[in-house]
């Protein structure tokens, strides 16, 4: 596979010097995100997130399976992140790169391990039947800050998703098709979001939010903070790179909280809009026989 093109020395110095002077190539502030857009698909559980030129599509699905033997009371929840050559030709099918491993690991820690989805509610018959919820993350275009966009897409897809309704009668489990009964939402506990800081300069003194691909290639280190709108931190990942001052990190976390509040407000708004669009006026409106004149 062809290697990713690295920025030239001139390009590198230009970006770094601009950042020293508090300037970014696209004219943003250092702590400003690119315009974030969220769209839902026709069916439930499809979220299309655009962050500048980065575009991520997440799709949630559910099916009934047998639970793991060591966890008979829990459902199964998996997040599949496979980067295809669509993202960039340097990614190969069935050969995970470091980016892919880090991305899936961070999503796992942020969404799954923080208990955002109540897996116990996915259990149908203890030890025999449970829901397996799966989110597929498709990265259509990669222009930096994949982690934040992917996390936002996963959370949006899961909150938008509806699983088929079920009922238990005399030990018989019935799973209703969408034509029989309206699907039901997942039991969702809190919405964690990732905020990634990139550090530039000799001692990592310049902290930048939402780095583009070019900035990511020349950065000294990065730190991903996952938290929800109540300020509860799910994880902080600082994998290598230059050491960063603890006080600076604290500052980063507090800025991250304001960003997360913006994210969750955006998501709530978009979800409400989508619900309104789908709402045909409730059961009585569906039963109505008279025409609109």
């Amino acid at each position, binding site marked *: *596979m*062809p290697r990713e093109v690295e920025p030239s020395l001139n390009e590198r110095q230009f970006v770094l010097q601009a950042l020293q002077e508090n300037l970014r190539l696209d004219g943003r502030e250092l702590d400003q995100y690119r315009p974030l857009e969220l769209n839902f*698909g*026709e*069916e439930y559980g*499809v979220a299309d997130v655009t962050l500048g*030129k980065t*575009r991520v*599509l997440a*799709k949630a*699905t*559910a*099916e009934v*399976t047998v639970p793991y033997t060591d966890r008979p009371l829990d459902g199964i929840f998996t997040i*599949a992140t*496979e980067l*295809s*050559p*669509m993202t*960039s*030709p340097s990614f190969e*099918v069935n050969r995970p790169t470091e980016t892919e491993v880090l991305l899936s690991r961070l999503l796992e820690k942020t969404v799954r391990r923080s208990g955002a989805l109540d897996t116990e509610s996915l259990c149908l018959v203890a030890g025999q039947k449970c829901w*397996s919820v*799966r989110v*597929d993350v*498709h990265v*259509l*275009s*990669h*222009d930096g800050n994949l982690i934040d966009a992917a996390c936002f897409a996963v959370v949006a897809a899961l909150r938008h998703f509806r699983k*088929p309704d079920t009922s238990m009668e005399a030990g018989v489990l019935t*799973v209703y*098709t*969408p*034509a029989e009964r309206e699907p039901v939402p997942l039991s969702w506990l809190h919405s964690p979001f990732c905020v990634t800081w990139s550090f530039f300069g000799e001692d990592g003194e310049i902290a930048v939010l939402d780095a583009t691909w070019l900035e990511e290639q020349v950065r000294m280190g990065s730190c991903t903070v996952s938290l929800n709108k109540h300020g509860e931190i799910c994880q902080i990942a600082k994998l290598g790179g230059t050491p960063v001052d603890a006080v600076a990190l604290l500052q980063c976390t507090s800025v991250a909280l304001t960003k997360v509040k913006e994210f969750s407000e955006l998501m709530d708004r978009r979800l409400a809009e989508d619900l309104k669009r789908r709402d045909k006026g409730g059961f009585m409106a569906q039963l109505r026989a008279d025409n609109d004149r």
Partner: protein
Amino acid sequence: MTATTAPEAALGVLPRADGSAKYSHAGYIVTASVNGPIEAQRRDEHPYEAHVDVIVRPAAGVGGTRERHLESILQSSLAQIILVRNFPRSLIQIVLQVEHSPENDYVNTKLVQANLNFAIMPALFQTAVLALLSAGVPMKATATATAVALSHQDGSKRTIVDPSPREVETAQSVHVLAFTSHDELLLAESEGDFTVKEWDDVYETASKVCCQSALQKEGIAMVLDDEDAGGPAMRHFLRSTMESKVAADLHWK
């Protein structure tokens, strides 16, 4: 479940790929990216021609044998129209990402193992051609594809263009045909029971859908008011999509 929606396409939707297209028709939404000609891996390198690599990615679940089968069919037919001999020892990579496929509302599907339907092939094929055009990959001809299902209902035979999943399930046979812009048959894949006579009928129907240009269609419409021919004029669609894209690109002021 609306099988008769008109095809829609957008070109150049992905900023980083050489060429890309999003295509939606009959409930299927597919996004494709094309990169090429790029450096090929040693094992794929061919001394005289470019290697065409097709990757089909289902919307949910992991791809399996069905996807590999679709990939191999698409690969061999697309390699026929791309001028592969112009780019020896290189690679033309086509990634097809299924975003949405129509579902049968009456059945709960198994999802961990994705199984793409045979009827998705025209959508995949058409998206690939559009993305190749968008990437400016030299081709002998453009191509159009369609799916036709034959079903027997109380003794009478019915031909369905762009069948829905439910129609595919109840159909006697399903056929996918593709034609080049020179009216040559490029791809013919069939599934199910059928006779040679029936196949000839399918061929007629498909070639009408794929090879008709707009002018002919208007002529027929005026004379016969021919509504039951079914299916959009694919070639006209391809041409008008490209025309509007080129017009938009040249409108630079």
